[in-house]
């Protein structure tokens, strides 16, 4: 990228360079240390945790983890979580980016009211949603299915996606659309082939936020499913953390088990995720 070389040249003041690296170091530390500390502590015994917080574990005993992962079908739960979270994310991205597109690019009566209502859904307290959603899913006969969770998770992304996507569409110059419309391109085509690709950053950002929310969702997974067949990871993990309420080693181990699957997933997909955000195209 030509960008890179140019900005590099600008880093001639060593003071600036030092500052950049200090910020990066700080970010690195605050992001990695808490997690690393928890993982390391889970390998220490109680007295080591209490007396020497910085020491490295004397040995790495993976048995507790192996036990946990063999006792339950974690492979299945991971796949369930992955499928449910991704399907819900993709469907909501489609639905809400269409909605956000209308609101960002066109004028029509009721637009502001709709936008306000959609973004307010972010602040609807969870307790008031539980009962209506539970009856909706039960009445549709979807209880204890993966689809129940997909359906519910679709609804969760509304505010954030509407919000982020609207801004993304708004930062695309209107002139592009007008030119395309004058050339006779259809509505869907303009949306799908011109605007959506340019709003890629927004899609990626809201997609990531929604996926993470779905991936970690626990309450509705607990309410709406019961059999191990459709169980998701956070729900499965809740069964363990209950059992591990006593000594610190086990509490750290429980926490490690809770946070690790997500981080491993992220490390695997990191490249693609970051690549999708870093749009290379030049806008305008």
């Amino acid at each position: 990228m030509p960008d890179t070389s140019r900005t590099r040249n600008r880093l001639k003041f060593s003071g600036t360079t030092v500052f950049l690296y200090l910020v990066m170091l700080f970010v690195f530390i605050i992001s990695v240390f808490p997690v690393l500390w928890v993982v390391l502590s889970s390998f220490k015994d109680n007295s080591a945790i209490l007396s020497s917080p910085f020491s490295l574990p004397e040995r790495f005993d993976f048995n507790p983890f192996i036990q946990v992962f063999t006792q339950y079908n974690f492979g299945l739960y991971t796949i369930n979580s992955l499928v449910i979270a991704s399907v819900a994310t993709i469907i909501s991205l489609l639905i809400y980016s269409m909605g956000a597109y209308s609101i960002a690019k066109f004028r029509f009566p009721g637009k502001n009211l709709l936008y306000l209502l959609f973004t307010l859904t972010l602040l609807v307290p969870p307790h008031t949603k539980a009962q209506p959603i539970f009856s909706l899913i039960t009445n549709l006969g979807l209880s204890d299915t993966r689809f129940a969770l997909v359906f519910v998770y679709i609804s969760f992304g509304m505010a954030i996606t509407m919000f982020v996507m609207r801004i993304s569409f708004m930062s695309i110059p209107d002139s592009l659309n007008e030119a395309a419309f004058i050339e006779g391109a259809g509505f869907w085509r303009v949306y799908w082939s011109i605007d959506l690709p340019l709003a890629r950053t927004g899609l990626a950002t809201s997609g990531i936020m929604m996926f993470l929310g779905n991936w970690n969702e626990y309450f509705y997974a607990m309410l709406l499913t019961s059999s191990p067949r459709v169980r998701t990871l956070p729900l499965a993990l809740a069964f363990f953390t209950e059992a591990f309420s006593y000594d610190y080693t086990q509490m750290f181990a429980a926490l490690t088990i809770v946070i690790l699957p997500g981080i491993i997933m992220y490390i695997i997909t990191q490249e693609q995720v970051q690549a999708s955000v870093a749009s290379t195209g030049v806008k305008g």
Partner: protein
Amino acid sequence: MPINRIERRYVPFAYAFLLPTIAVFLLFYLIPIVTVVLTSFTRWDGFSTPTFNGLTNYLRFFSQSSFLISLRNLLLWSLIAATLHVGFGVLVAFVLFQKPKGWKAVRGVYMIPNIVSSAAMAMIFRFMFNNDFGFLNSLIRLVRPSFQVNWFFESPWAFVAVTLTWLFYGAIITLIVLGDLMNIPSDLHDAARIDGATGFQAILRIQLPLCRYAIGTSIILSITSRIAMYEAIALTTRGGPGDDTMNIPIILVKAITDLNYGLANAAAVFMFLMGMFTLWIINRLFRMNNPIY
């Protein structure tokens, strides 16, 4: 920008595009929102028939002994979120945009705390800030061996501790802003360079204003997160010591514990209003309805 002919032709399509969103809204949110607003004017235990009691819940909500401190905390946290929190996220974005060596690794690593659920993150911070064996105090004791602070459970540290659980975790902000920075057309950079703008001037005059949507978005997202912040408090201080770290969601959940759904929903309506106010004021401040380019 008046509605032109082309645009008018496409209005029906615009509505059609909104239909799925409206459908989801009707299915999942209409009943809850209507319930919240209506029952906030009633005496209701959550299961029997609500009885209208006018503004009683609101009056009781505003006269709660913990209301004022919750409001103060909300304002302080919102202010910190809008300035320091978003500021840090933006700073990291600008740092990474300079693409120093290792920037990709840092960008990747910064997401990790966001992957961990907020419940697990709160637990981690409870351990990190533990007086006996927590990481933070052990570190401080290397310098000052007699140091004793129970972060989450002593005034005035509890407020600081709760703030620290999210203050520097702005990966989403960095993501949004970095995305916008990378989208700035290169001819604008070139133009700035020809004008003789040096690094900082280019940032102030060109890049920062062009990221105004992204920054506005970040501020709205982080303030609304403060309004709705629950787990970071419920799993650490639970609003204590005393009422030091109370906020509105904690009042709301406490009201539910006592089966006072009317009061809880009055608190929820108050949260709606705060959210609407945030949306409105940030939209104004950042001129988010006007096109950038």
